[in-house]
């Protein structure tokens, strides 16, 4: 009998799922994270370290939260004021969740949608963060081999969350910078057709609104068109609304919950919302994810599946108390938006001053930065080259558009809400130095031949891999990008005329 090689034995020992790389973490995208982890920036201890701008976290309002917790010891089961609840909470593992938790979350969801819709606490199902919520929704709505349409660019984690253990496919709906990455009916139909041709039964459309990585919100007409599209095709619409309260400035967030009231004959059994407290409240560590479905059967089964990722009862208890405090919540949402707006403005003003373009958007914890004119060639290889320079030389971890399945190279997601003001200043300074070095190189090349300098300047060898003409090719395409004009009317509306 031929002995199995070690590798083959390995293969047989584990499942295909564990042995494969469906977890997505082998992508080059994670190299930036590794670079950060090996050399994280610290203003005093590691001033030359990598600044983390690849992490979409809301760290601007931790002080408000901390103050509330200290003022409300009864919300904890560890304090003298709260310990009499300890045993009841510690044994509570009912997958319906604490009623007061569900009521408080429903109220918070209403507030973050300007109280324009009502949410039923009995439709709130817990999950292990939005990560767990997405996977649960995929398990409920699709079989292995089925597909979800997802507009690009999208959050890289979807490749794992929706596909890895479920066997579901993601079919991209390609959106273009030429119209500000709007989702068009043409793009939806094209994606639907692609799926059909590839023998992938489409079970739903997943949208993230506000968008990650774009930071844009969907306008009412666009949302209505999406609801009509899915309704007509009799497929599900899953709206990931985890950034609902991160809107600032002129941006208005409209929930799919509001729009379904305005679409006649909308089949609500097809409508589902994924929510979380990780972004809006800046509490990713507490793992509070929510599946909210208008489909009774989905609520029922998702609830059974929530056994695999219930929210800790200790956390449910704290959140129930915190989100029931109307004054605190109103103040928190208000201040959070102001601080997000200020930090966003700091970054974008800095970029404007350097002639770097970004997609005009007023939500999320990041901006979608335009570095297309820095690419040697309009290819993803060039994008990766540029990205490596940014990570290893400029020492900023940002997310390359290719990792978000953007169809066009040169875009980068840059997070701004996970750092303090000084770190932001440092980051902008590094970008300034980087761009001025590029300009220097550009000027040097266009000057007539001169005698070589007496002292050889330090050669920035990595710069030769970039296109050097930067300053004169700032993009002001069609008003979608900074520094000017508001977003025009949705192309979906135009298409219907």
């Amino acid at each position, binding site marked *: 009998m031929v002995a199995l090689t070690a590798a083959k034995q390995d293969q047989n*020992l584990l499942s295909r799922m564990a042995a494969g790389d469906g977890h997505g973490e082998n992508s080059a995208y994670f190299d930036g994270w590794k670079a950060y982890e090996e050399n994280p920036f610290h203003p005093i201890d590691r001033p030359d370290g990598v600044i983390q701008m690849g992490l979409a976290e809301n760290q601007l309002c931790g002080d408000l939260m901390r103050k509330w917790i200290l003022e409300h010891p009864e919300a904890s089961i560890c304090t*003298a004021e709260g310990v009499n609840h300890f045993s009841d909470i510690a044994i509570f593992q009912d997958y319906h969740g604490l009623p007061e938790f569900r009521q408080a979350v429903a109220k918070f969801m209403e507030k973050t949608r300007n109280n324009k819709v009502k949410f039923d606490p009995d439709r709130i199902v817990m999950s292990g963060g939005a990560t767990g919520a997405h*996977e649960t929704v995929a398990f409920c709505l699709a079989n292995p081999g089925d597909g979800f349409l997802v507009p690009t660019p999208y959050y890289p984690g979807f490749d794992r969350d929706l596909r890895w253990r479920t066997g579901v496919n993601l079919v991209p709906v390609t959106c273009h910078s030429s119209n500000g990455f709007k989702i068009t009916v043409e793009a939806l139909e094209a994606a639907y057709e692609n799926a059909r041709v590839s023998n992938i039964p489409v079970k739903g459309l997943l949208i993230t609104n506000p968008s990650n990585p774009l930071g844009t919100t969907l306008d009412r007409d666009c949302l209505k068109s999406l609801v009509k599209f899915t309704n007509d095709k009799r497929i599900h619409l899953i709206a990931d609304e985890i950034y609902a309260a991160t809107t600032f400035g002129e941006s208005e967030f409209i929930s799919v919950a509001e729009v379904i009231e305005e679409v006649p004959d909308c089949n609500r059994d097809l409508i589902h919302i994924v929510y979380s407290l990780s972004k809006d409240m800046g509490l990713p560590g507490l793992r509070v994810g929510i599946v909210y479905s208008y489909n009774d059967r989905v609520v029922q089964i998702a609830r059974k599946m929530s056994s695999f990722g219930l929210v*800790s009862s200790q956390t449910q208890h*704290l959140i129930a108390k915190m989100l029931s405090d109307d004054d605190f919540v109103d103040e928190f949402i208000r201040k959070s938006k102001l601080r997000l707006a200020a930090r966003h403005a700091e970054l974008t003003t800095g970029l404007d001053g350097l002639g770097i373009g970004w997609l005009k958007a007023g939500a999320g914890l990041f901006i979608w930065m335009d570095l297309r004119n820095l690419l040697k060639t309009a290819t993803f290889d060039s994008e990766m080259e540029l990205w490596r320079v940014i990570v290893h030389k400029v020492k900023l971890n940002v997310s390359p558009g290719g990792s978000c399945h953007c169809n066009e190279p040169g875009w980068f997601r840059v997070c701004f809400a996970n750092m303090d003001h000084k770190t932001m200043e440092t980051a902008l300074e590094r970008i300034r130095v980087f761009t001025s070095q590029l300009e220097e190189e550009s000027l040097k090349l266009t000057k007539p031949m001169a005698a070589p300098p007496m002292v050889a300047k330090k050669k920035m060898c990595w710069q030769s891999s970039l296109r050097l003409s930067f300053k004169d090719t700032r993009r002001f395409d069609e008003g979608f990008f900074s520094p000017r004009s508001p977003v025009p009317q949705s192309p979906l509306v135009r298409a219907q005329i």
Partner: protein
Amino acid sequence: MLSSKVINESHGQDSSYFLGWQEYEKNPFHETLNPSGIVQMGLAENQLSFDLIESWLDDHPEVLGLKKNEESVFKHLALFQDYHGLPAFKIAMAKFMEKIRGSKVKFNANKMVLTAGSTSANETLMFCLANPGDAFLIPAPYYPGFDRDLKWRTGVEIVPIHCVSSNGYKITKEALEDAYERAHKLNLKVKGVLITNPSNPLGTSTTRDELDLLLTFTSAKKIHMVGDEIYSGTVFDTPEFTSVLEVAKDKNMDLDEKIHVVYSLSKDLGLPGFRVGLIYSNNEKVVSAATKMSSFGLISSQTQHLLANLLSDERFTTKYLEENRKRLRERRDRLVSGLKKAGIGCLKSNGGLFCWVDLRHLLTSNTFEAEHSLWTKIVCEVGLNISPGSSCHSDEPGWFRVCFANISDQTLEVAMDRVHGFVEAMVMNTNHGKQKRTMWDSRRRSLINKWVSKLSSVQCESER
């Protein structure tokens, strides 16, 4: 329109195990508010030792204040979503697990994967070790939740290893080989054996000989060995608890990459609400894949922080384990003697939060129909929610799992009185024959009819 997982209802929650729960929830016993309600004896929870934890919390107010060494840890916790877990928490868990095993096994925090309860740990292990259509062998009777946790979303099959009361449910070589053969005949590829040690529902710990046999078997077949040891801290009597990792060490298999342990704080510490589970494995690839999968169910950082503090207090954990075991033994003894007075025997147990009770002599026939009929009487008439053996995949009708650690002393008294009353009445009925219908008898019949029709139509929605 929905997935087959939704349509087929393969979650396993329509079994009688869960239906009894539903009825309890409609009419729960309360000493003063609802003294005629149903007593919950189907819930394997440890509610005997909360006072010890509460008094620890009283003595350690700094755990919440979110201040640690004068610096607020709140921000750190709020943002901490690293699936590797809080290092302090994993180290504390490792120490706690070592203490339970009398330091005979060492645990390395780097081989640990944190999960949202053992429910998630077991499912995750299946996703890592088996493909859809593969099988795991499990000694029966086993915990009803496995039908959901191990099979539902993973597509993995369970093939039971038949264990019988005549030899105290010992796992034998013949039973193992037989199960393996049966899987083979069903065209199922066996990927491993999973045991619960101490056993749920039996309340007995796996002996050293059995563990040796199991490891010899799995090693020869080159398949995995999973030891679900979530009740390890509840062993209150001899023989003392032996972990599969201890026997593996004796066999020079302690670094074997096919041996994995599942743990949780839901039973030993009585904290099921906190959702604390873990996978322990020597297999780097399993640890790596399972860690990534744990993203779908991480433990709240707030909870990790609290427990890291609690479990790092060695004096507390030593005292807790000792006192907890003592209380569990006392409670078990009270249940056993109460049942004995009614002429009811139990399997001799040395751990767990329940007894495996023998009601075979009360069956009208040696069938599962008779067991079901007896069970409905007990839930509906006697007002005790206990778990019928069939829901645990028992081979022999007439055995029931009865939990004792989730109720007060007084409630246990009430339960025992009801059992005595029921047995007396049954004896009376047998003696007087069917002609003499008592009021009680016709009430019983109408209640059963109502009950049976409810059971067949109702959809269970409660958690275990």
